[in-house]
């Protein structure tokens, strides 16, 4: 099964819509609630990152009997130093993002914590692609 959603940069009113829809699907097909929570928390963090930092993005989810694979790609400024961005507490979020309750520098570390595999590719001035996997078995 494959699902795809568009995410707009700066659109905080709809941040989390894709995660919410994917959560509904995962519940319908009886995925373990603990795995659902991990997947949607990671996905929501990624969605918020697009809203906070990028111009536009796309969420693609593939569900197989073995795993849930997620790809979140965006067109945006990119991440100059991924290692630094992975450190808890490091943030480049604007005051507006912090007013929404985010921008504490916990996003990427929390995505890593909630997934079994994480790959981040980024090009400065072009955008970022996150791929993560949660195994079902």
């Amino acid at each position, binding site marked *: 099964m494959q699902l795809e959603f568009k995410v707009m940069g700066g659109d905080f*009113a709809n941040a989390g819509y894709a995660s919410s829809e994917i959560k509904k699907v995962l519940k319908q097909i009886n995925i373990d609630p603990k795995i659902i929570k991990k997947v949607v928390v990671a996905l929501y963090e990624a969605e918020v990152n697009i809203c906070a930092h990028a111009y536009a993005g796309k969420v693609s989810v593939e569900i197989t009997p073995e795993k849930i694979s997620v790809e979140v790609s965006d067109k945006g400024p990119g991440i100059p130093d991924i290692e630094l961005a992975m450190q808890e507490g490091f943030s480049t979020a604007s005051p507006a993002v912090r007013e929404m309750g985010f921008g504490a520098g*916990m996003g990427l570390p*929390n995505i890593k914590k909630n997934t079994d595999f994480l790959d981040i590719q980024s090009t400065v001035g072009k955008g970022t692609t996150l791929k993560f996997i949660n195994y079902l078995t």
Partner: protein
Amino acid sequence: MDFLSKKLYIFVSILGNCFRTDHMTHKEISKLLNGRIIIGEGSESTNYQYAFASDLMSDVLTVDSENLILITGLANLQAVRTAEMSDISCIIIVRGKKASEEMIQLAAESKITLIECNYTMFRTCGLLYQAGIKPLY
């Protein structure tokens, strides 16, 4: 502290513990906090045992617990989205903040109880702790 004061202190402590509980329903919570249940009045009575207080949703997304109450002064859509992704079914909005129509609608869809309360976050936490609600760590 003289002998009589010590005795009185012990008596009051024991009496206080008699009224402590290890869980509370949303109706009991609202009554204790002199609050208002905005949505979820008739929902199934979950027995809440733990609470987490934060205005920072990035921190809320890192916690992992069931039967958790979220205490926050952040009255925006992302507080409800964060609760939805974190499987939190009760939000107490403190400091007299009001839930918006969008928040109420999303909470209804996600079966999340919203309680508004005029107390500060500190007072809210103190009252719930005194009543037996536990911290996560």
